[in-house]
């Protein structure tokens, strides 16, 4: 990428030939062909989608059993290649292996749809998703190399648990189906956050740290998004009178407990500064679920809770040197401040003076946030990561 620049600097006399050679060698070794990776990822995605469409459009020509047999044989081939050729594929390009694992997982997921088509059966969506996770989750966890497989695992888990919770809402009104308790649903919906400690533990111990790091990050994101959502619900007073169901105190207690538990495990699994702070964020997100419930109806307090959560994240990011996370946290706080100004002063907006005042306030908040995130943000994550790496 920067070879041309280095050459120009050399010719301008800024660097000598040795420095030039050293720089070029360094760049060569640390090159991250992002465009190439993106093409690999998109190629894998396109093949997966193409398989679904081919199956969907031209399937009546071939008998069902034959089609299913071909589908299973393709899947067996992909998995066999993954198992036998893993070392060679990784040596050639880690992305080839990543794409193959993702294709195998996609073939596995489409097999459920294919079965439904051949036998004219249907079931609630969470059932095939849960079976898919049970059959293909271990494979993905054992071979995943990067964000693609990590997102498949986390995405599959989140889709599955929320479909399950959604289906249970209907089961509540049905006499035929056993009712699932609120506590069980709260446990199930918060279970994906446990991928956080899992990722944290294996990050330092596996030959595939990138995969586990992505998994930990995704779990942390899930916890923070959930806590922010709870704070938003508190500011619209959604908890009022919810004595049973997903917004009840006991449900949120279970989820908060899961957050604290996952946070503690994550900190234990990766006892570096960065690991302990990541664990602290997950635990803090869990705790803010309970605080949000307690604050229900007090819109100023709910807004303060949201900002406290993100200040906590910003502080952790500052200490651990996560530049992007810090900037995101500052942006989240600024947006919440702007929304708060509308909430508190909605009548001001009705007058011309109020509009001018609100506009100035928004500009001031945006400018301050911009300055803070420029001035105080730690240096870029990658640089820190490489320095911190043992």
């Amino acid at each position: 990428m920067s070879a041309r620049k280095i050459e120009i600097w050399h010719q301008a006399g800024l660097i000598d030939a040795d420095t030039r050679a050293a720089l070029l060698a360094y760049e060569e070794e640390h090159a991250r062909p992002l465009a190439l990776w993106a093409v690999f990822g998109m190629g894998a995605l396109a093949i997966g989608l193409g398989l679904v469409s081919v199956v969907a459009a031209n399937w009546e020509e071939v008998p069902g059993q034959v089609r299913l047999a071909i589908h299973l044989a393709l899947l067996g081939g992909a998995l066999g290649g993954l198992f036998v050729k893993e070392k060679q594929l990784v040596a050639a390009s880690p992305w080839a292996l990543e794409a193959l694992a993702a294709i195998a997982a996609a073939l596995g997921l489409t097999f459920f749809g294919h079965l439904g088509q051949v036998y004219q059966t249907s079931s609630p969506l969470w059932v095939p998703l849960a079976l898919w996770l049970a059959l293909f989750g271990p494979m993905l966890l054992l071979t995943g190399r990067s964000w693609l497989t990590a997102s498949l695992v986390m995405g599959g888990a989140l889709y599955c648990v929320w479909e399950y919770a959604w289906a249970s809402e209907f089961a509540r009104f049905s006499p035929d189906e056993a009712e699932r308790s609120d506590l069980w649903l709260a446990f199930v919906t918060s279970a994906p956050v446990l991928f956080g400690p899992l990722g944290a533990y294996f990050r330092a111990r596996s030959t595939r740290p990138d995969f586990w790091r992505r998994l930990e990050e995704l779990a942390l994101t899930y916890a923070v998004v959930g806590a922010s959502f709870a704070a938003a619900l508190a500011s619209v007073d959604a908890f009022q009178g919810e004595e049973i169901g997903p917004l009840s105190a006991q449900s949120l207690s279970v989820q908060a407990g899961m957050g604290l538990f996952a946070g503690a495990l994550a900190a234990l699994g990766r006892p570096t500064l960065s690991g302990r702070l990541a664990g602290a964020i997950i635990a803090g997100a869990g705790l803010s679920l309970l605080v949000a419930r307690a604050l229900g109806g007090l819109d100023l307090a709910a807004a303060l809770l949201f900002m406290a959560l993100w200040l906590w994240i910003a502080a952790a990011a500052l200490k651990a040197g996560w530049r992007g996370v810090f900037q995101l946290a500052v942006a989240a706080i600024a947006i919440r401040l702007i929304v708060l100004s509308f909430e508190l002063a909605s009548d001001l907006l009705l007058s011309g003076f109020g509009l001018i005042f609100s506009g100035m306030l928004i500009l001031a908040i945006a400018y301050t946030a911009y300055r803070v995130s420029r001035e105080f943000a730690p240096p870029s994550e990658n640089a820190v990561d490489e320095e911190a790496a043992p």
Partner: protein
Amino acid sequence: MISAARAFFLLALPVAGLAALWWQSEDLSRQGTDWEVPIQGYDPRDLLRGHYVEFRYDWPIRPEDADVDAGDAQAIEGAFRPMPQINHLCLIGDPPVIAEAIAFEDPTDPVFEQCEHKLSVQPGSVYGYASLSRGRLYVGQDRALELEESLRETDQRGLVTFRQREDGVLTPLAIRFRPLTDEEREAREQTRAADAVIDEAEALVTN
């Protein structure tokens, strides 16, 4: 040892697991009695499973057995006629011909429990609580278009063959068409005439 575990999780578990599910679906699909039921309908499409035709079942339920609630609703709402929800059906007849279908609200009704050929609503299926009122059959793209045309033609009668399993699950198997009989054509004309009268009455009321 580690290699054996890897082989299990990377190869055996996914492939054998899916094969077992396949075997189970195959086994289930062979159980049950085949019946034919008249249908009405139209079509959209499903991305994951390709094309399907969607239809409403015209169960031969005798008018006096028809849902009482729907009758009340009709009395209250005037011309507005909601489709009654069917929760449980008892099929009577010589398969595949259904002589009569009797609707039940309560599955513990002794008459229903005695019934030889039972169908029950499947809340977990695509149509949920409407799964005995509406259904779909997956077919290829070209055939789906053909069927859609046929279903729109009112001089034909669509018939769906379905398999009724012991546990009350209904699985559509095939679809075919036959021209309307004279009686059916007459009945259709009568319904249309009645609809026209209701529409006129509605128009008068709203004006």
